[in-house]
């Protein structure tokens, strides 16, 4: 078993969260890397939807942006941006929404808009993009984000994408079609919403990581699930596929 980085472990764990054949709305960056890895390992039938209009894209390398030409060239169909959101995302046709985050809170709400006050921000982030409707309309949401006390907060400064609000039942009250965040995959482990409270709790640790490390990297009092397990280390096959994917990406950047 060769060495691997915590980012590689995170990406592999995220890829494993995608079951074969699901239709996945993919954000750029870590989500795109994980979805492409899944297609190259256990889930060749994953259908990737990019908000730029590529339905069923099969890029041979990692696109740097959501609209790289390779996405259109390899797609089953290329549609307009209004069509992606209105005909494909909004009706709930997409099984999994794969999102990143700058801040995420104990109820899985995501902030990609501002750190600090909206009118006078400490840090101005890119903003919403497609995330608010992805979070509301996909069958379920998987979040991939590096874990730190700065990023994992009790309450996000700005709700860009709704998770469970302040607890159970809120999604239903909004009439949301999607089920919300099912897994938050980090460089330390995996968090999942508690079935009763909807609060994110630690369900898996990556090899060599302790619950204490995870708690220290969380801005709220992180509960560990009774069934806390360890995520298996990346296999040789997974690492090889991931590294090939990245090299191909760099080669094409």
């Amino acid at each position, binding site marked *: 078993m060769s060495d691997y980085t915590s980012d590689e472990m995170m990406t592999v764990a995220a890829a494993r969260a995608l079951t074969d054949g699901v239709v996945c709305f993919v954000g750029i960056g870590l989500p795109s890397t994980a979805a492409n890895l899944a297609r190259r390992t256990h889930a060749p039938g994953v259908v990737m939807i990019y908000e730029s209009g590529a339905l069923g894209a099969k890029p041979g390398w990692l696109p740097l942006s959501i609209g790289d030409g390779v996405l259109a060239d390899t797609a089953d169909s*290329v549609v307009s941006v209004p069509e992606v959101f209105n005909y494909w995302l909004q009706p709930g046709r997409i099984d999994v929404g794969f999102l990143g985050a700058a801040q995420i809170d104990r109820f899985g709400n995501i902030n990609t808009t501002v750190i600090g006050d909206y009118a006078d921000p400490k840090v101005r982030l890119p903003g919403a993009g497609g995330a608010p409707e992805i979070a509301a309309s996909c069958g379920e949401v998987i979040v991939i984000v590096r874990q730190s006390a700065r990023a994992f907060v009790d309450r996000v400064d700005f709700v860009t994408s709704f998770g469970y609000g302040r607890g159970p039942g809120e999604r239903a009250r909004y009439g949301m079609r999607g089920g919300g965040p099912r897994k938050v995959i980090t460089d330390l482990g995996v968090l999942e919403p508690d079935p009763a409270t909807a609060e994110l709790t630690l369900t898996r640790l990556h090899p060599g990581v302790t619950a204490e490390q995870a708690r220290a990297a969380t801005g709220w009092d992180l509960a560990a699930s009774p069934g806390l397990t360890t995520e298996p280390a990346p296999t040789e096959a997974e690492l090889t596929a991931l590294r090939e994917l990245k090299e191909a990406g760099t080669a094409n950047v």
Partner: protein
Amino acid sequence: MELDAAVAALVNDGDTVALEGFTHLIPVAAGHEVIRQGRRGLTLVRMTPDIVYDQMIGAGCARKLVFSWGGNPGVGSLHRFRDAIEHGWPGPLEIEEHSHAGMANRYAAGASGLPFAVLRGYLGTDLPRHTPNIKTVTCPFTGEELAAVPALNPDVTIIHAQCADRDGNVQMWGLTGIQKEAALAARRCLVTVEEIVDRLEPRPGAVVLPSWAVTAVAAAPGGARPSYADGYYDRDNAAYQAWDAVARDRDAFTTWLGDEVMGVRA
């Protein structure tokens, strides 16, 4: 029509201007011409403002930005955009912020001659608290409440396409994003193209804008660089990465602006 003449004729101080392009076919040359002509007080509209909007904001063209995602794709922040919002340099920048779904539907309503669009959007988010023109409408059949956003009808939309014929019919292919809606929603529409051809050849995935729906066409070979034009050139990813360092520093940006934009002709 020449690019400089077209921009001079179509873009005025204080206009609401949309330069659209979803990673592909971004009208960068036209944006630089707007900077060169010293336009001021513009309301810039775009779903995905990237480095050309960072440049226009840094150059002081913009009073307001209407957008849904502002970043340097695959690289990080837009530092001129952040400097304007966080520190008011070179001047204050008012923002109006939406989601992609909201912006796409605003353009579609504008293209359709409707005053507003309906969507399942913004649910549970803080956006409606900061963006006054996100409202709700009730379905007259089911009683269900949905999000409503006003139509976007820019004074001018500028897009870049692969080619046009001599009659001014425009053809683009690949990821064409929101360009058709943005063009049809605008009062005036300028299309820059890689080349003018005798005849548009039918192509898979091609979108054609008939000449009577376009105000002006200007040849601007390479006019989408550093973004890409499918069939003509690839995305210059290194340039997007290099922009980060330039944009981080006001002096470096000012030097870049003089050398790369003000110092050259269209």
